[in-house]
């Protein structure tokens, strides 16, 4: 099964490598948000902007992620290839995992590219605490893609699919947003990861629960 999950992932990487649709949508959108934030906080004291920086980044990642998830679904809709995956002799949960990993990868890479640009524009340094921050980035993004992959599968079946995804997605990922923002603020302020195990646990628990349960129920989303 792992090999087939990897196949689905590789197929998405290959497609994305050629079209760059999902990636460019997410990257450009996140970049725009980072720029617009600057105008929104025009009169805020510089210190408070720096404090809010991790929060701004995660808001940008969240909304960019929604955009990317909508694109990711369009790929499987084009020639109804999602139905082809359903016809294949693999567990529907494996289809979920393959798509989820692909979504995770593209979101994560576009986040990694936004970070240096953010650092330059806001004169903010990530370098001192980069590795723990990277871990949080992985945990948070995994949560987004775990929920986003199954919810975008739900949203494509509704009458207003592009609007439905954020409505379903945003309230449910609240714990990820809180956890990621809290830990990012503290990690970037120099606190060691040891001091925030509760938060890391919440992120891990969220990821594990949503990946496992989605794996189990994904076939009900696909089957008519």
């Amino acid at each position, binding site marked *: 099964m792992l*090999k*087939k999950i990897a*196949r689905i992932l590789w*197929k998405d990487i*290959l*497609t994305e490598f*050629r*079209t760059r649709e999902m990636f460019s949508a997410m990257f450009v959108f996140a970049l725009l948000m980072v720029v617009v934030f600057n105008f929104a906080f025009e009169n805020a004291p510089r210190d408070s902007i720096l404090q809010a920086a991790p929060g701004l980044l995660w808001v940008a990642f969240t909304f960019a992620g929604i955009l990317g998830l909508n694109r990711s679904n369009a*790929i499987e809709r*084009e*020639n*109804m*290839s999602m*139905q*082809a*995956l*359903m*016809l*294949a*002799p*693999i*567990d529907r949960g494996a289809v979920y995992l393959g798509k989820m990993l692909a979504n995770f990868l593209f979101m994560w890479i576009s986040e990694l590219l936004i970070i240096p640009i953010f650092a330059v524009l806001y004169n903010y340094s990530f370098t001192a605490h980069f590795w723990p921050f990277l871990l949080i980035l992985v945990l948070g993004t995994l949560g987004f893609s775990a929920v986003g992959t199954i919810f975008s599968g739900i949203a494509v079946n509704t009458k207003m699919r592009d609007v439905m995804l954020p409505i379903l997605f945003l309230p449910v990922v609240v714990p990820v947003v809180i956890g990621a923002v809290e830990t990012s603020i503290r990690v970037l302020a120099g606190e060691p990861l040891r001091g925030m195990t509760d938060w890391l646990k919440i992120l891990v628990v969220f990821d594990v629960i949503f990946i496992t349960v989605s794996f189990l129920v994904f076939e009900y989303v696909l*089957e*008519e």
Partner: protein
Amino acid sequence: MPDSTPHLELFDIRKNFGLVAALNGVRCSIAHRDVVALFGRNGAGKTTLLKILALLMRPTDGHFQLEGVDARRDAADTRRHIGFISHATYLYSDLTALENLKFFGALYDVPHLEERIAQSLRDVQLWDRRHERVRGFSRGMQQRLSLARTFLHDPSLLLLDEPYTGLDPIASGMLDRLIERFHREGRTVVLTTHNLDLRLPVVNHAVVLEKGLVACDERRSRFASKDFEELFKEHVKERAE
């Protein structure tokens, strides 16, 4: 192969969409080597039935057996033996012809995949264009590649949903020959059509669906084209009155 156990046996299959019943208890037995033409008006439940057989849809009630084994018990394994053709091509437009076949071949664990892909690409006359992206293919080429994709894993049961709709003459001739070859090789075919003017001499089993029920189920060694029309008129009219 012992022909005593039917290849496919449907036990009282029902499907409701909400309170609307699409299938009202379909019973049918399909033997090995049958080429079944499933007729019915729009909304008679043909596509619904085919989707249930392809395990794309969950029946509300009832079950069906493949080679005497309940099809949903090991659904993933059942799907290995089924080929399904509908109006969608099921191809990834941004992958090449070769990549598409490699991807699906790997999902089906096709043995000797490389040679098999080479053979099937030659069969559908796309070998020379194997490294081109599907997006640049004409509609007809995409349909041919889609056929190659369906036969790649050597299914023993082929389900076709309105297969002739929208096919160009080349692809449709290719499909005729494929179905005939399939029949010769001893496999089973079920195709739905609303077109009574079906010129497929290998059809040996006609089923007419009407309002979610089997109105007529006939096996003959051979059907002439006009037989379909007669059967259909006889059975569908009766119920309309």
